[in-house]
């Protein structure tokens, strides 16, 4: 176990380094010179000396390998430089927006688990009945529905419902407040985005739960458990579900990383000031330092959650860590 644990954790670093190299290359491939944009934006002419001075200021006159080492050294110290657009430190820009994104992501995960596991199990138990068909349709629709459209539709629904009930349309405010300060207001902001993202997430996990359950229900030990007269509830919960959850956990873990990517679109719909919206803004503003840092953040979350899934899997299934 220890050997597997150590080697799996160590594998994270070359992957992170590779991802950083890729981000570095991608950012250098973006056409145009940042200094030309900076200096030329006023419409005035500028001297070659001013251009060189600007290059020296942001350090792009140095050899590329030095720039790369500097970038990696910065990452290691959580120093991402300053935003080219707002002039504030990147870390500050991200830190003020990360909580709302994280809360939506965590809430969406909880919603997904709460929907996926019971529905997936029922669907497997009632295989090929109308219940199964309804659950499967619900889940395929979840994968097919664009989350931003679902967002627009749910906003529309809330507006219409509140209009019908109280006479004037109501929308939750968009100023984020932490959960511990004003729980009701916080939830009213986060709930809709979480449901919107959570639906797709639930759909993917539901399909996995169903197929894993179907596989497990055909195992000999389930027949044995039934044959010795155990209550059906115990057979399902203790014997079947426990074993079927292994692949479901994997899907939930992997999808969590992609959830952060999905937030890029959802936050735009709900006007949430999170990292997804920040990323779209930074791409539109060609704010390279900020884009670079945000991509690294999302990629790091993906790599680390993949590692956690692998470790959890190994802990649950001895065949992996001993192989």
């Amino acid at each position: 176990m220890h050997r597997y644990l150590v080697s799996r954790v160590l594998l994270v670093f070359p992957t992170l380094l590779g991802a950083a190299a890729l981000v570095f290359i991608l950012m250098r491939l973006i056409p145009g010179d940042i200094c030309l944009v900076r200096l030329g934006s006023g419409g005035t002419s500028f001297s070659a000396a001013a251009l060189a001075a600007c290059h020296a200021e942001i350090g792009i006159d140095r050899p590329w390998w030095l720039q790369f080492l500097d970038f990696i050294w910065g990452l290691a110290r959580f120093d991402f430089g300053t935003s080219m657009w707002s002039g504030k430190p990147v870390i500050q820009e991200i830190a003020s927006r990360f909580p709302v994104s994280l809360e939506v992501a965590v809430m969406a995960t909880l919603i997904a688990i709460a929907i996926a596991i019971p529905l997936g199990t029922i669907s497997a138990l009632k295989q090929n009945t109308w219940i199964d068909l309804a659950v499967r349709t619900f889940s395929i629709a979840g994968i097919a529905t664009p989350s931003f459209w679902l967002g627009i539709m749910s906003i529309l629904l809330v507006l219409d419902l509140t209009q019908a009930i109280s006479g004037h349309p109501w929308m939750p405010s968009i100023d984020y407040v932490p959960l511990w300060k004003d729980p009701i207001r916080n939830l009213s902001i986060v709930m809709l985005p979480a449901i919107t993202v959570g639906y797709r997430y639930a759909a993917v996990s539901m399909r996995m739960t169903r197929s894993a359950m179907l596989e497990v229900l055909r195992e000999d030990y389930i027949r044995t458990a039934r044959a010795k007269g155990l209550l059906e509830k115990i057979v399902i919960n203790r014997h079947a579900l426990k074993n079927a959850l292994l692949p479901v956990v994997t899907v939930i873990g992997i999808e969590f990383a992609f959830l952060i990517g999905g937030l890029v679109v959802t936050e735009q719909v709900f006007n949430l000031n999170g990292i997804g919206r920040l990323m779209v803004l930074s791409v539109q503003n060609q704010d390279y330092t900020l884009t670079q840092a945000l991509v690294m953040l999302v990629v790091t979350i993906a790599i680390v959650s993949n590692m956690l899934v692998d470790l959890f899997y190994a802990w649950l299934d001895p065949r992996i860590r001993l192989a």
Partner: protein
Amino acid sequence: MTIAAPTPTGTAVFADDRIPPRGVVASTIRFVRRQPVGSIGIVLVALFGFAGLFADFLAPYNPTANDFTAMTEAPSWAHWLGTDQLGRDILSRILFGARTAFVVGLTSALVGGFSGLVLGVGSAYFGGRIDLVLQRLLDILMSFPLIIMALAVVSIFGTGVHNVIAAITIPLIPRCARVVRSSALAIREVPYVDAARALGFSHSRIILAHMVPNVVAPFLIMLTSFVGQAILAEASLSYLGLGVQEPVAAWGLMLQGGAEEYASTAPWIAVFPGLAIMLTVFGINLFGDALRDVLDPKLRER
């Protein structure tokens, strides 16, 4: 060991089991009966595919023509699905949007899928150091969520249909390569591949003639899901203003800006393009599920 000549009863049993040749109509009925849900999927995909292919003839209006005398009009006989804030006919834009969606979806899925197929099978076949290095590279690429990678590519190449296709294709490659590799690894150890190697066949012949046909089933299933994913990704990018640009008709673009602004007064602007995306991807996924049932006999009974 001797091989017995087929007995009369043996041939009779065999003849009974044989699938009799059928006409197109009969086999269609058979498919619909076995895969009712998958058939609905095929109908949906065919419907939108047809719309995209013949948009020029089907669309009642020019999809890019503004009509300032008919702005944000509700669905009527003149405009079946209403008009948007610039007076453009929504039905016409949805028909032409189907073309954009399928062009982007199919191109990205095919190019990404086939590149992944080559990489995946190659990686499994050559094994050793090549496999190790390639897998680590794919690990790195896979750690970029699809939409994030697409955003990065768009910021390099710029927006527009061609760049959106590139932006969606690139992240699909490692995902395909990963799945194909794991199927191909199992086949690499099969005796007939050893035999082909012993006969001195070239690498490309072994890969193309002996390994690729065996990974076709998972590959095709993945390819259909890629088309759906690519259509969703295109819609998302266009919605963010980083994909297909005006005045090209695209479903994601139709939901941008005006759709949200006018959502409560003119809901048809927001409702119909979203429904088009949903129904198309829904159809593709239903078709993909049916395809999996047909191609993977192990799953048939489930």
